[in-house]
């Protein structure tokens, strides 16, 4: 059973790990490969500060709220473990600021200690008259992605630096299931008019005295178009840019100015902070996450794709819930394959294998009887 994960950002690597953890012992023939044109530190995930926080409103998308909660709880359980530091995982408290009262968010009971800001606290932030305080988590991808890669490598998952041009390309190689975690460029594999880039830009500074995240909100500008300051374990991230439909990954001097001026107004001490890095990236924005199976026919064959993309600016926040949902879809694929192929006699399998091996490319050579039976079942349906 060959599984190809396309995409090596937080979604691709975590989905790969989740599936491998759950099914490797059940499917001994499971061979997993990761294909991506970009790996850490060059993925979209690497540019994110890493703060766990969903958007203010889930737009009635309760499924996503559940996935967010599953991710938070999963990460919280790992906080006390020795792996936490290597994962880039730690607790962080901070502020969400508004210019007017707003309803409580869907995630108020997921995070720790959620409460409204007191008048004294609001004095810290002139111009803002309402806000929240809570403790959440940071998961820094420049640590988390290498950690996931290490876990996967230990499990003998193979990595290929390659831009996959089509699903067919994977099936032609003998891949049975493709996990499509291609993020903002998923449209290149299959057009998706709902997927748009949400361009962001950030400045990384040395400001180790900042211990809280500060996210401001401007109902008019829209999400992430209002300044935010997020302290990491090394540098502090300044941001506040969200440009829907803008594919440009170049640094914009105008955006730099906007970020810098707005963040310094928010935290005057930042004026003294040294700028170390700048980055711009494209959030894979979609009205809802695309997390579903698709059966793709090619010739007489059919193969499965599990789509897992379109996580916008909350990929880290939702990743593990989505990975588990993708793993459940994978499980349903396995289930169907088992039902489609009742136990075969060895002789039949061997004969079938001979037939198959003539038409198969070297990469697609089967190993072991079980995988032969699965290939056989594919032919039959």
């Amino acid at each position, binding site marked *: 059973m060959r599984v190809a994960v396309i995409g090596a950002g937080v979604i691709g690597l975590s989905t790969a790990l989740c599936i491998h953890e759950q099914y490797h012992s059940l499917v001994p023939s499971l061979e997993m490969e990761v294909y991506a044109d970009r790996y850490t530190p060059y993925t979209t995930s690497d540019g994110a500060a890493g703060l766990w926080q969903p958007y203010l409103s889930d737009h009635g998308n309760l499924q996503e709220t559940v996935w967010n909660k599953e991710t938070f709880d999963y990460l919280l359980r790992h*906080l*006390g*473990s*020795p792996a*936490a*530091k290597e994962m*880039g995982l*730690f*607790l*962080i*408290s901070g502020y969400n600021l508004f210019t007017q009262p707003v309803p409580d968010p869907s995630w108020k009971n997921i995070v*720790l*200690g959620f*409460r409204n*800001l*007191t008048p*004294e*606290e609001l*004095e*810290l932030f002139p111009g803002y008259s309402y806000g929240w*305080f809570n*403790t959440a988590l*940071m998961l820094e991808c420049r640590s988390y992605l290498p950690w996931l890669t290490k876990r996967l490598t230990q499990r003998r998952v193979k990595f290929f630096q390659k831009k996959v041009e089509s699903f067919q390309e994977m099936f032609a190689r003998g891949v049975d299931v493709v996990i499509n975690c291609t993020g903002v460029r998923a449209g290149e594999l299959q057009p998706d008019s709902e997927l748009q880039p949400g361009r962001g830009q950030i400045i990384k500074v040395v*400001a*180790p*005295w*900042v*211990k*809280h995240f500060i996210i401001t909100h401007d109902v008019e500008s829209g999400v992430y178009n209002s300044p935010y300051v997020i*302290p990491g*374990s*090394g540098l502090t991230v300044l941001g506040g840019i969200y440009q829907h439909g803008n594919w440009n990954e170049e640094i914009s001097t105008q955006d730099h100015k906007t970020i810098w001026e707005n963040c310094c107004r928010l935290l*005057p*001490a930042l*004026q*003294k*902070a040294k700028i170390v890095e700048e980055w711009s990236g494209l959030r894979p924005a979609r009205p809802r996450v695309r997390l579903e199976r698709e059966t793709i026919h090619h010739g007489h064959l059919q193969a499965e794709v599990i789509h897992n993309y379109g996580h916008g600016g909350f990929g880290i926040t939702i990743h593990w819930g989505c990975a588990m949902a993708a793993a459940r879809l994978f499980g349903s694929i396995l289930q169907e394959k088992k039902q489609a192929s009742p136990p075969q006699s060895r002789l039949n399998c061997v004969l079938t294998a001979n037939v198959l091996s003539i038409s198969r490319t070297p990469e697609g050579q089967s190993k072991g009887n079980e995988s032969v039976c699965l290939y056989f079942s594919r032919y039959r349906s």
Partner: protein
Amino acid sequence: MAAPKVAVVGAGVVGLSTAMCIVETYPSCSVTILSDQFSPNTTSDVAAGMLIPHTHPGTPIHVQKQWFKDTFAYLFAISNSAEASEAGIHLVSGWQVFKNTPKEELPFWSDVVLGFRPMSKAELQKFPQHRFGQAFTTLKCDCPPYLLWLEKRLKATGVQMYTRKVADLWDLHSEYNVVVNCAGIGAHQLVGDEKLFPVRGQVLRVHAPWVKNFIRDGDGLTYIYPGIHRVTLGGTRTEGSWSLSPDPGTTKDIFDRCCSLEPSLRGAEDVQVKVGLRPSRQCVRLQRELLSQGGVKLPVVHNYGHGSGGFSMHRGTAKEAARLVGECIAALEGSSSRAKL
């Protein structure tokens, strides 16, 4: 009196802030700071500088609260300004956790710090050995930055600073009109105050930049305070010990206790060990005294004995000390004009 000459003995947080208040309130004074130690070698440099008051049994609570409020307000304004990073002042949030529910659920300072509230059950799950907790946001004064920032501002106003071990306050009577005694633990020897005793504190300073929240055990013995560059892990409260040498067994004990509160500290690097002697007393000695020998008088203002509460009370007591200095100057001017008559 033309320019009253005031000597401040001591250059820790109390000495420097007292000098600052005198300069601010009585700009005509000429203020000089004399100390055998300056930052980074003062007791203040060892302290984490967290604004979490310690309750002095000998001082009325409303007075301690006012001192804390004054200090908090002063530092809050700095933390909110462009000077925050240079001054080493920053906000930090966290938790105070108790193994047993404390007698008083609301400490006197709960409405001065920000956002004080009991911890939720979910928050307490992180501390399985503790049954109760309080969450709040307070300020931290990192040293040396805060002391160096005070020194810089003092020098800008013309204040002179000299390294000098003052053996006896009377030695200063010919050069200065008023002496302010901010000698901290040094007052034990300087003025022979037997009521002043050291409470030895050993701390570790570690590199663990992912620790963003403070954690303090309500017994005051174990704490994790994230500073700008390092996290301070503590600690000890050994009454009567004058030893400034780090004890390796204590180092391991502090580290283990802190790791049980925050397991990720196992990954902390570059452990530095420091020892400081808290200048402890039933109450802060904040009062005037008139020294006199052979008809010559030397007004003294004492401002020492802050124990664990130096940072929490420094600005409030400094303001009061400055006010007392003003009284001394007024008294001197009064007697000198009487002398003219």
